């Protein structure tokens, strides 16, 4: 019974669809096609994205990302548009009409241009192979097949209809994971062809695996239902890199170019990361930035202080104080470290120390927008 059901679903939903041809640069789909329909809805979504308050609309950053895209996919250079959204997670998205979305959390998780290019190349892979269209067609066929099966069997054997749903959804998820693997391969091939060191791709997944390991909630995110596990991708990418590695590509990571493009954003992005309230995972992000020496020890201490302050478990306030104190030992201490040190000390009832911290803040940031509030605290703590 079961295999016959599977066969029925595969017949109706699976095997008949041949892989789609690659998208032709500059071609728009025929108006009466389903593809044109999806483009129409994505064009509207793109207008929303372009004018969204959540967008980081920085022409310089956009131009840098576009430059990397054109370097690894010259043929699609004019067909793709990239938008950076202020989303503190690791992700990028590709719409079938050529809109690419980069989540800001990606920019503190990839370590150099080679890694960034691999993620962008992965997204280009989805675009090139028209993956969204393929999954939408498959979904349509599968649900239609499931309805037919439910009608044919449901009244008599309801369990059969349930089994069919499981098989059908499994087919879809499998298809999705196949697409992800294909996009991974396209990404790594493209960066190798553009002269980057392909071994960098495995580093992305090593980082994500570290975050996933630190944060128990991480693995329950929907992301891993449709994407291969980071460890698997690490292994696959490392193996592919060995085949693709050319001597002239070795250690060509574009680290300096990447750093120059994102350095002015790092503190903001780390502040955003803190707001996610995912203590363990954020600690991994800070660790990795420290290891690659893109943030100072003092900056790292400040953000660890922040992590303790927002978590607020037993003993965290004292831990936060210790981190903030370390954060202000450098040549150019971040003024916020003084302010937040003051906040935590005030919470601890250390009036004199809190007042001193707030006064230090005002001294280091006399034009701060929250000056009036901090002055009120100083007054309150003087009484």
């Amino acid at each position, binding site marked *: 019974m079961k295999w016959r059901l599977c066969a029925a679903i595969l017949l109706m939903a699976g095997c008949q669809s041949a892989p789609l041809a690659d998208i032709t640069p500059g071609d728009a789909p025929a108006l009466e096609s389903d593809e044109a329909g999806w483009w129409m809805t994505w064009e509207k979504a793109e207008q929303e994205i372009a004018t969204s308050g959540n967008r980081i609309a920085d022409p310089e950053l956009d131009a840098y990302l576009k430059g990397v895209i054109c370097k690894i996919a010259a043929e699609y250079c004019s067909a793709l548009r990239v938008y950076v959204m202020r989303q503190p997670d690791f992700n990028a998205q590709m719409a079938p009409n050529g809109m690419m979305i980069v989540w800001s959390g990606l920019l503190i998780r990839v370590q150099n241009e080679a890694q960034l290019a691999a993620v962008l190349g992965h997204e280009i892979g989805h675009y090139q192979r028209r993956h969204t269209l393929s999954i939408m067609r498959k979904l349509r066929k599968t649900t239609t097949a499931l309805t037919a099966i*439910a009608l044919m069997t449901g009244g008599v054997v309801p369990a059969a209809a349930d089994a069919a749903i499981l098989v059908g959804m499994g087919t879809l998820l499998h298809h999705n994971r196949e697409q992800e693997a294909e996009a991974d391969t396209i990404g790594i091939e493209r960066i190798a062809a553009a002269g980057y060191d392909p071994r960098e791709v495995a580093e992305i997944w090593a980082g994500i695996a570290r975050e996933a390991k630190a944060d128990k909630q991480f693995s329950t995110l929907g992301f891993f239902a449709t994407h291969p596990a980071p460890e698997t991708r690490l292994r696959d990418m490392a193996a592919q890199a060995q085949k693709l590695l050319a001597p002239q590509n070795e250690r060509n990571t574009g680290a300096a170019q990447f750093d120059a493009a994102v350095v002015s954003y790092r503190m903001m992005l780390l502040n955003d990361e803190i707001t996610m309230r995912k203590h363990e995972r954020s600690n991994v992000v800070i660790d990795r930035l420290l290891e690659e020496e893109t943030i100072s020890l003092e900056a790292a201490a400040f953000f660890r202080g922040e992590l303790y302050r927002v978590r607020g478990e037993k003993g965290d306030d004292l831990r936060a104080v210790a981190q903030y104190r370390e954060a202000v030992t450098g040549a150019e201490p971040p003024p916020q470290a003084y302010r937040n040190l003051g906040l935590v000390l005030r919470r601890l009832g250390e009036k004199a120390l809190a007042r001193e911290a707030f006064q230090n803040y005002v001294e280091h940031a006399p034009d701060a927008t929250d000056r009036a509030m901090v002055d009120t605290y100083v007054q309150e703590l003087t009484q």
Partner: protein
Amino acid sequence: MPQSWLLPSLLILAFAASGCTMTKVLKPETAGTVDPARAKVLLLPLDVELSELAGGGTLTPRADWTTTAREHLEKAIGTRIANSKASHVAADPALLSAESRHLQLFKLHEAIGESIYQHQAGGPNGQLQVIPTLKFGFDWTLGESVRALKEETGANYALFVHVRDSYATAGRKVAMVGSLLVCGATGFCMPIGTGVRNAFASLVDLNTGQVVWFNRSYSETGDLREADPATKAMKAMLEGLPL
């Protein structure tokens, strides 16, 4: 062959085929009356999307149908306004380009329109989502920033129209009939719906930003891809429009 299920099935089928159209008009209690003779109505680009409803219930948007329907509806609404005492101001498509500041106003209306639609006017397929703590009458405004639109276009009212419609494939129709037959024969009843139209429209006073008229319409019949049914649908969508 048992005949007992045949009659009920046919009755259900007949009912399903007949379809229905519902409208719900809302107006603020405090609004002054609209004087059609002095109204210059800006018809904003229609927000239309037509989709194909497949056997399993998935919706696939169709660009060609959408384009045709938008043309029919724009023409029908234009004629409706031209036949009233009000004058019609055609909207420049550039008004809603990504670079235009008015796009934000359009997005604001979308949010407000959706809220009225979901929580006060019946929602999709008539499923009203009541917010228990939201106890006020019909009182919505886009704010005075709408005046920028007035200054640029010379209109004193703006008409926003939002339409989502879907049409069943042959496979879906077969599934509908099949489900009714199975339901009658075995008692296993799987609700399989047909394509429906959910639309809402609002008239906004460009001096105050107030929504002075709102109408939700729902229909299971009428093909927007053809001129005559589109005109008929437009009449339902603009029912009670104070112009």
